[in-house]
């Protein structure tokens, strides 16, 4: 693939603006069904993709499965640390087994930060990071940025607010890298316990005040509150969170008329966002899900066609 020089997709931190645009442009071509890429289901025919999901996931795994099948490749999904293939095994041993199964690429979801990099050092095939602990979730951020670009036009100069649990969010990190590389004005917002001030040195604005963070935003990207993990030590209660940092319908009047709302799902309705806003015309949540397939087709095609 012209200009593409990455063997794996480990995170957006490691990509340039050109790399990101290349993926997004290709995703757009898939979405529009351009002639060069038709029929798409011939493009990766005969290739075998392994979904190695060591942590629960529904939409990311399904989106990758649909994307893989849309390109004509075979997909095998191995799920959970307790599956018979991986039971008690080290990542190294699992990787060797998966490689021996004849994989042309491995899509990895894992709770350990850095595990896709480790896997890429163990096997010869491309690795696609489908979420590694709190580190990165590049395909999610790419579909977010694709959706933003689709709705708002070029990303440069746009004001994007990422709101919620920044500290533990891989989606926040990947978007932070992707959006700043493309020239957006990014504000990170959330409670001080979930948003370290040092992050400001990465060229973003840090805000602990919801109104300030949203009123001039072109888009608000909400993050899921993983209350099982953070409650008690990081914020007092879901009710308090919702009051201080939830996107309630009463805040709608503060938003720019054309502002859009994104959420990587699954949504905690009434916590991060009120139902009315989640289902309003401002919400692009379902559009994100649909775009996820084209973005993942682009990722798979770039990585596998390049290595073939």
């Amino acid at each position, binding site marked *: 693939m012209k200009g593409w020089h990455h063997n794996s997709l480990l995170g957006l*931190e490691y990509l340039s603006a050109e790399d990101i645009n290349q993926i997004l442009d290709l995703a757009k071509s898939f979405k529009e069904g351009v002639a060069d890429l038709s029929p798409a289901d011939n493009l990766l025919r005969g290739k075998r993709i392994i979904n190695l999901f060591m942590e629960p996931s529904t939409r990311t795994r399904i989106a990758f499965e649909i994307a893989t099948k849309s390109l004509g490749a075979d997909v095998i999904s191995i799920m959970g640390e307790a599956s018979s293939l991986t039971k008690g095994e*080290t*990542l*190294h041993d699992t990787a060797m087994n998966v490689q021996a199964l004849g994989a042309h690429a491995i899509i990895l979801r*894992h709770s*350990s*930060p*850095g*595990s896709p*990099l*480790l896997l890429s050092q163990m096997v010869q095939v491309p690795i696609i990071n489908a979420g*590694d*602990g*709190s*580190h*990165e979730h590049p395909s999610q951020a790419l579909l977010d940025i694709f959706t933003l670009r689709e709705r708002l036009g070029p990303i440069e100069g746009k004001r994007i607010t990422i709101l919620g649990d920044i*500290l533990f969010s*891989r989606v926040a*990190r990947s978007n932070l890298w992707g959006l700043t590389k493309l020239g957006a004005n990014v504000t990170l917002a959330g409670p001080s316990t979930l948003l*370290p001030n*040092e*992050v400001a*040195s*990465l060229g973003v604005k840090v805000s602990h005040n919801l109104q300030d963070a949203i009123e001039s935003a072109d888009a608000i990207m909400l993050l899921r509150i993983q209350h099982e993990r953070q409650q008690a030590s990081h914020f007092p209660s879901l009710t308090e969170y919702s009051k201080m940092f939830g996107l309630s319908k009463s805040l709608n009047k503060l938003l720019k008329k054309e502002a859009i709302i994104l959420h990587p799902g699954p949504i905690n309705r009434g916590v991060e966002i009120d139902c009315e806003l989640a289902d309003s015309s401002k919400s692009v949540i379902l559009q994100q899900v649909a775009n996820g397939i084209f973005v993942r087709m682009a990722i798979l095609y770039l990585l596998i066609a390049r290595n073939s």
Partner: protein
Amino acid sequence: MKGLVNCDLIGARIVNPASNTDKCIDLFIRDGRISYSSKKPEKCEKIDLTGKIITPSFVDLRLHQKDFAGNRSEKLSITTERAARGGFSVLLMMPNTNPVADSPAAVRLILERAQKDAKVEVLLAGTLTQNAEGKALSPMGSLMEAGVSAVSDCPRSPSNNKIFINAVKYAKMFNLPIIEYPRTSDLSDGSMAHESLLSFKLGLQGEPRISEELAVHRAIAVSKSLDVSIHLSSISTYSSVNLIREAKKQNVSITADTTANHLILTEESIQSYDANAKTEPYLCEESDRQSLIDGVLDGTLDAITSGHDSWPNHLKKVEFDKAPPGTMGLETAFSATYKALSRKAKDPIALILEKLAINPRKILGQNMDLLVENELANFNIVDLGNNWEYSKKTMHNGDSENSPLLNTSFNARIVANFYKGKIVYSSITH
């Protein structure tokens, strides 16, 4: 006795800060004992050591050797071989052995094994609290009778203040050195790296600097209040260095060390999730490293340790968060320290000997008659200007390679180690 050395060491510079010695003088080893005048047999081997330095051998205040009942840790014979190559003659083993050194029976078992397998002297610290859990005092009197040389819960610290204070009071009765590894467990539990912008980027749960700082505060307050000496182990942050410096100005009876790895490395070493750089304590930022160096230079930090903790390769070649913390350091402690300090100190070799040989002995209350006429030879031969690289080829062959300094080049090296009148390591060729 078998193996006792007879040789003439000609032309070396002898540096021994314990006796303010720094001069070129020939050393004659007869039946393993030191002599400053040539005695019979006259025909023994003559070794030209022009340009080399003879120094007292080193004492390490923190070694982890985890298992005396299984195979989770490198064998003590291999660890002590590494120690010999690094110039150490005495190692203080932390109590997180298996079994844990919290009962007289465990202490006797471990010391018996250590005596059998070790190439150099291995001492043992007993726990401050039972199973180092911080809930009940360990039987320190009985542990002392069984042979422990210090007490510590390293790599933990009792979180309960009452237990900590009583453990310190109790240990004082026996004049056992108290070694505190300063950590606030509820701030450190679950962490994977030093808390910083880098740990945020990597998605690794960070240990805040304040975890060490609070425990250092506590140790200083307890030392002052009870008038007990406490040694703080493996200081890693600038804030701790500042606290210790201030405490020493007020004559609080605190001593402290850092590890050689912390003088030469920063958190940048974990950028690619290299578990071999997952040290304990974690590597911090450049400002911390600079402050540790300043602390060594101005005497705030009394000693430098290896912090040696070897793990079999398969336990380190895993996901970063799943890899146990701890890295090797015995073979590189001197060379790394020299690299970190040689351009900063007025007399680097004397300073390094204070930190690796003299002060650790003082902290453990050991004999300070070093390089004395008629004593058994216990010294190193050091070669400054010896360019070498620490690599899988140059390290002693064992089950572990978990050093963050793999493939690092150095310009100073231990070339021989004499221990109790015998040569336990030598790379000198004739």
